[in-house]
């Protein structure tokens, strides 16, 4: 199994470490040619404007969109969720734009409002998931084919649309690897 992690800016090494704990090796994706031969792709947390800008600069948006539309499983966390969303509140131009959701950036406030909370995510079992929200976005609305996996205080914070997963929070910062394991199950 060959998983790519977008490595333009942000916490990509933490995703690699989570995958390594599950016995899966991964490659860093900075240019188009690094997308060849991948079975799945992770778009990490970071600053979505930085990552989006660098994706445009290096012509990564279209090839990633194409791979997503042809069924490649993808996981986007925080900034990665914004990158995958078809709509961004406030009229900001969307990026890869493959998930039928609208996201609002920094919707819990600034850094002093960043928080940790235990989250119920039924697809992962009954044990709560330790979720870290950092200047986090949330999902304002979802299309008909999008399944809501978790909410926090009535806000949608985790969704799945077939082979695509997106989260407001950062599973790569904790040592609970259930979300990465769930993603690897989608990869097969």
């Amino acid at each position, binding site marked *: 199994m060959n998983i790519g992690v977008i*490595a*333009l*800016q*942000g*916490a*990509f*090494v*933490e995703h690699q470490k989570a995958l390594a704990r599950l016995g899966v090796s991964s490659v860093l994706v*900075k*240019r188009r040619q690094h997308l060849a031969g991948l079975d799945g792709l992770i778009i990490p*947390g*970071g*600053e979505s*404007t*930085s990552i989006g*800008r*660098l994706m445009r*600069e290096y012509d990564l948006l279209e090839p990633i969109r194409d791979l997503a539309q042809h069924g490649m499983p993808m996981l986007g966390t*925080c*900034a990665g969720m914004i990158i995958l969303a078809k709509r961004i509140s406030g009229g900001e131009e969307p990026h890869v734009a493959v998930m039928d959701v609208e996201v609002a*950036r*920094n919707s819990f406030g*600034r*850094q*002093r*409002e*960043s*928080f*940790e*909370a235990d989250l119920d995510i039924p697809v992962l079992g009954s044990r709560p998931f330790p979720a*870290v*929200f*950092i*200047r986090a976005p949330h999902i304002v609305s979802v299309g008909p084919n999008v399944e809501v996996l978790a909410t926090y205080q009535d806000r949608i914070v985790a969704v799945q649309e077939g082979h695509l997963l997106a989260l407001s929070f*950062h599973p790569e*910062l*904790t040592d609970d690897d259930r979300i990465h394991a769930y993603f690897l199950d989608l990869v097969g």
Partner: protein
Amino acid sequence: MAKTGTEMVKRGMAQMQKGGVIMDVVTPEQAKIAEAAGACAVMALERVPSDIRAAGGVARMADPSLIEEIMKAVSIPVMAKCRIGHIVEARILEAIGVDYIDESEVLTPADDKFHINKKEFTVPFVCGARDLGEALRRIGEGAAMIRTKGEAGTGNIIEAVRHMRTMQAQIRKVQNMSEDELMTEAKNLGAPYELLLEVHRTGRLPVVNFAAGGIATPADAALMMLLGADGVFVGSGIFKSENPEKYARAIVQATTHYQDYELLAELSKNLGTPMKGIDLNTLREEERLAVRGW
């Protein structure tokens, strides 16, 4: 129950900045240029370090109204500086909601013995360090991010290189020591023992470590990444260059693609004049900012 201001969310915020460029800005317009170029955060200031040097006198926290204007202008995180040991400047910055406080030697220190107890704050702090001992003292006080100091406002990379190389060499040394030797090493470095033990076990600082102080070109930024920096701060280097937009974009891309030398060659072409640098040998001892910090 949601918990704010935890070590996890403070340090995690810095992890999200990795591989990125944090740019000094003095106006909302500069902040927008930085954001459009792909900066992962901006540092809101009244003057960039080279102008602080030129102006002389006491350098203090920026006017909060300027910082708020910059916060309104961009969606990326906004950092701001307080003086070393100035607890109230830090509390004011926290009250207006800046995302990260830099307790910075670039401003005139307010306390010649003690730094701020940063654990008491909800907002995370970044602090400067020249070596491992200084970094671990700051982390012991609660810093959630370290930047090697370099020599701010000089456009000269030599001190940034020296501090990053010192840090990396000391980490390697501690990692390879026997555990029996660590207490004496903690004494020699002036570092908290528990944190030194963590460095020994993990082979890295417990928090993200950016480079700062003298980065003026895309090649400078790439050099610091190659030497092990998690990202870079660029102070005077962008808005004191001939073409800030071009420099900003090129430095962002060079930081991401720091090992792609053909690309770095392209990024370095036709940028115009970089900021004018200062030969460190012409700097008097009291003009050096990096020595501030205890």
